[in-house]
């Protein structure tokens, strides 16, 4: 059996967030070196603040300033900081109850080692030098043995408030297409298209998935299909995709390869886009070193009768 393929897949996107009134005040406060909490209906102070009361569901808007000093309520040592974390050297994740707050805030504590961290220790905010209105305006916390810091009595009203942020997200996966698709890709490297037949309904799947989606049984019998096929339906794409290096207009078609029981999708070339039609007979065009046919072109055969492909749209 050929080797099962694997490759890294990074999913990454800069999401935009509209903050709403409470988070807007909280993050603008950080930019101005002010930490804000919100008063609940039962007079607790929540830091970070929330928009709605966790007990009564009432709308909360009463912002109050708390101190940039506080007490560690629990912690965990991070031996191997990863990309995007607050500190590049080993540090403690801490929950800090700031002086004046009733709940704790999650952040990083810069400490020389695990032995220097304990529940109940006093810490203070280390502000980032450049602040933009983001949680990273608190660079981290650091050990502190002074008095609770004084508060200015800020009410959360600011000039030029931050109303939105960009939250970059990234997930790293290792992707494997599995046994059946790996075999299909290996065959393609020899310019052959090989699907699999379901032992129950006898339908030939291209590309194969290793199981029949309707019968729910594993497939293993390999069947070479094509290389020719029939255009069963299509559209003409007139808008350019950002990440796709294809000139518009182009034809995106469903093609039933001879011997396959469902259509695969590919581009049609080698003829004017406005002359492509349902029933057109096509064959693959390969380019050197490519994993897939670059496109399909007309074979010159007469068009297929509608009845021969109407179940394969």
């Amino acid at each position, binding site marked *: 059996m050929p080797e099962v393929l694997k490759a890294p897949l990074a999913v990454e996107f800069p999401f935009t967030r509209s903050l709403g009134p409470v988070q807007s005040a909280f993050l603008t406060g950080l930019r101005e070196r002010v930490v804000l909490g919100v008063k609940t209906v039962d007079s607790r102070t929540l830091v970070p603040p929330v928009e709605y009361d966790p007990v009564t569901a009432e709308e909360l808007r009463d912002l109050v300033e708390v101190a940039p000093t506080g007490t560690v309520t629990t912690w965990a040592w991070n031996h191997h900081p990863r990309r995007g974390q607050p500190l590049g050297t080993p540090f403690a994740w801490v929950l800090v109850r700031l002086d004046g707050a009733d709940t704790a805030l999650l952040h990083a504590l810069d400490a020389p080692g695990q032995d220097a961290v304990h529940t109940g220790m006093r810490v203070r905010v280390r502000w980032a030098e450049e602040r933009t209105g983001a949680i990273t305006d608190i660079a981290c916390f650091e050990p502190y043995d002074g008095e609770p810091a004084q508060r200015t009595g800020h009410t959360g009203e600011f000039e030029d408030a931050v109303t939105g942020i960009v939250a970059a997200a990234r997930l790293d996966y290792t992707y494997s297409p599995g046994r059946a698709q790996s075999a299909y890709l290996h065959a393609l490297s020899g310019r052959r298209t090989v699907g699999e037949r379901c032992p129950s309904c006898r339908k030939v799947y291209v590309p194969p998935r290793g199981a029949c989606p309707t019968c729910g049984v594993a497939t293993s019998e390999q069947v070479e299909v094509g290389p020719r096929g029939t255009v069963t339906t299509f559209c003409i794409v007139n808008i350019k995709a950002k990440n796709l290096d294809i000139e518009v207009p182009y034809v995106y078609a469903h093609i039933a390869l001879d011997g396959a029981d*469902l259509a695969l999708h590919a581009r049609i070339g080698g003829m004017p886009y406005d002359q492509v039609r349902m029933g057109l007979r096509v064959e693959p065009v390969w380019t050197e070193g490519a994993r897939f046919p670059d496109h399909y072109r007309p074979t010159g055969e007469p068009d297929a009768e509608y009845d021969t492909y109407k179940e394969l*749209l």
Partner: protein
Amino acid sequence: MTKEPVAVVGIGQTKHVAARRDVSIAGLVREAARRALDDAHLAWADIDAVVIGKAPDFFEGVMMPELYLADALGAVGKPMLRVHTAGSVGGSTALVAANLVAARVHRTVLTLAFEKQSESNAMWGLSLPIPFQQPLLAGAGGFFAPHVRAYMRRTGAPDTIGSLVAYKDRRNALKNPYAHLHEADLTLEKVQASPMLWDPIRYSETCPSSDGACAMVLTDRTGAARAPHPPAWVHGGAMRSEPTLFAGKDFVSPQAGKDCAADVYHQAGITDPRREIDAVEMYVPFSWYEPMWLENLGFADEGEGWKLTESGLTELDGGLPVNPSGGVLSTNPIGASGMIRFAEAALQVRGRAGEHQVDGARRALGHAYGGGAQFFAMWLVGAEPPAR
């Protein structure tokens, strides 16, 4: 033991727009939920459970947003469920909520669906750069346009039908204050002259990208008796699914859609949907899906759906008004779109649809689909309590 009859006693929507930059996701869902409670004259404490739905987490990139939304929806100390069935999720979310009442698990349930597309990127969320796959597709329209062409070939429909649907739905939206697109100076000629994006689909035949939320309060007979406004009663509800791609799949008229409709009609005692149903809110993201779904849902024989559209039957003042609200073509906060269909159907039979009210609507169908015509969810609501 028979099921408990389920009544819709509260409905709330946000004004759907391209971007609600003034609110967080929590603020957006809160607005719809608050309006639904106000419609029902209920407080947060009157709600026994919350059932919430949205499209994939990848859209806004907030993993399990229901966790963070519990405060905003008064769900603390109560059961909270998240439903996910791609584009049909708004419909299936309402059905899960309705089933909790029908089964007498809870008496009064708040159900809500949302999408904040301005904070999301649906095209990106659906087109991850999967290794070993050939990138080909340019947007959702490129996925659906070949199926529209297949419908045209199969039925011989003239190529103007799609523009009739788009023009009708956008005109209807002008009567709906919550609709996103209000294109007062749109003409049929402008629709037909709009750019061809994915031939045969034109720009004006596609749905917008919206921020919005929709909420409903569902309750039992006791709750309905206390309601300040007439309720809508659930006469039937069903969900069906099938694989996204399989040999023999009919993208033009999927079997799961036919089966789902047949189940709903059976529950509701409907034998002639065209004559017994007074209004339809169906999920039409591209205009041609109106004639396609008219056939799939049994309102027209196979190949005849476009003739109903062409005859004007589906106009607001026609014999079978389709999407009096303006539909998905005028408003598309993806995760909420299915629930808006269900809620608009309920508004019609409650007589509370305002300017887009269908005169004398007694029975209405709400329909949702998603996942490349893989998931279907529908309900039939009536002005009278169900007979059985």
